[in-house]
C-alpha cells in the first residue's frame, strides 16, 4: 500500500505542476505524467481493463490530440491578474474543505451490485449504454466534420 501512497503524492504533484507551468508543452507533459500515474494506480489494484483504458486513451490518444493542437497554436499562457488567482485559490480551498468535511466518518453502504467480472457487466448489463457510446462517437465525428468543414469537405 505504500506504492499507492507514493502514487497519490506523485499525482498531486503533477496536478500542481500543471497549474504552475506557463509553457503549454511543459504543462502537457505534466498532464501526461498525471494520467500515467493514475493508470498505474489502477493497475496496482488489479483493475486491468480500466487501467489499460486509462493508459491507452488518456495517456495516449488525448495527449496526442493536445499535441496536435499545440503544434498549431504555439502560444504561451497568460494569466488573469492577482485578484482572479486569489479567487480561484479561495474557491478551490472552500470546495476541498467542504468535501473533506463531508467525507468524515464515511461508512460504506451495502452495494446492490453483483460482483461479477467487468466484461460480463459491460456486454450484458450495459449493452444500451455501449450503443449510446457508439452514437456519441458517431456524433463527435459528425460534429468535428461540421466544425472544421471548410478545410476538409469540398
Amino acid at each position, binding site marked *: 500500500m505504500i506504492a499507492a501512497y507514493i502514487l497519490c503524492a506523485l499525482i498531486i504533484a503533477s496536478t500542481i505542476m500543471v497549474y504552475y507551468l506557463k509553457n503549454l508543452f511543459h504543462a502537457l507533459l505534466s498532464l501526461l505524467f498525471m494520467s500515467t500515474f493514475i493508470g498505474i494506480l489502477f493497475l496496482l489494484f488489479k483493475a486491468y481493463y480500466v487501467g489499460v483504458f486509462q493508459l491507452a486513451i*488518456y495517456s495516449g490518444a488525448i495527449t496526442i490530440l493536445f499535441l496536435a493542437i499545440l503544434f498549431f497554436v504555439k502560444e504561451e499562457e497568460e494569466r488573469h491578474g492577482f485578484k482572479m488567482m486569489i479567487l480561484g485559490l479561495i474557491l*478551490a480551498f472552500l470546495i476541498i474543505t467542504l468535501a473533506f468535511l463531508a467525507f468524515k466518518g464515511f461508512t460504506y453502504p451495502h452495494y446492490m451490485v453483483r460482483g461479477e467480472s467487468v466484461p460480463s457487466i459491460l456486454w450484458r448489463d450495459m449493452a444500451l449504454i455501449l450503443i449510446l457510446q457508439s452514437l456519441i462517437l458517431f456524433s463527435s465525428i459528425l460534429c468535428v466534420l461540421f466544425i472544421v468543414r471548410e478545410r476538409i469537405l469540398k
Partner: protein
Amino acid sequence: MMVSFIIYITSLIMIGVGIAILLSSKNLIKYVMALEIMFQAGNLLFFITSISKTPPLAEPRATMIILISVEACTLAVFLSIILVLYLRFRSLDVSKLRKLRW
C-alpha cells in the same frame, strides 16, 4: 480504509486545482487541461467505490470504462472548436472575446 481516504483526498485536490486553473488562466488550452483533470478526479471517485469491498466490485469499473470514452469524445469536440477559434481570431485569449456584451 486508509487507501480509499487518500485517493479521495487526491481527487479532491485535483478538483480544487482544476477549479483554480479554470479561474486564473486566460488560455483556452489550459482550460481544457483543467477539464481533463476534473474528469479524471470523477473517475477516481468511482474507483474508490470499486475497491471498497474485498472481492472488488466490477460495476464501478465498467462505469469508468464508459466514462473514459465519453470524456475523450467530448474533449475532441472541444479542441476542434478551439482550433476554429484560433484559425479565425489568431489568438486563444479568453479576454479578447468581448463582442457580445449587454
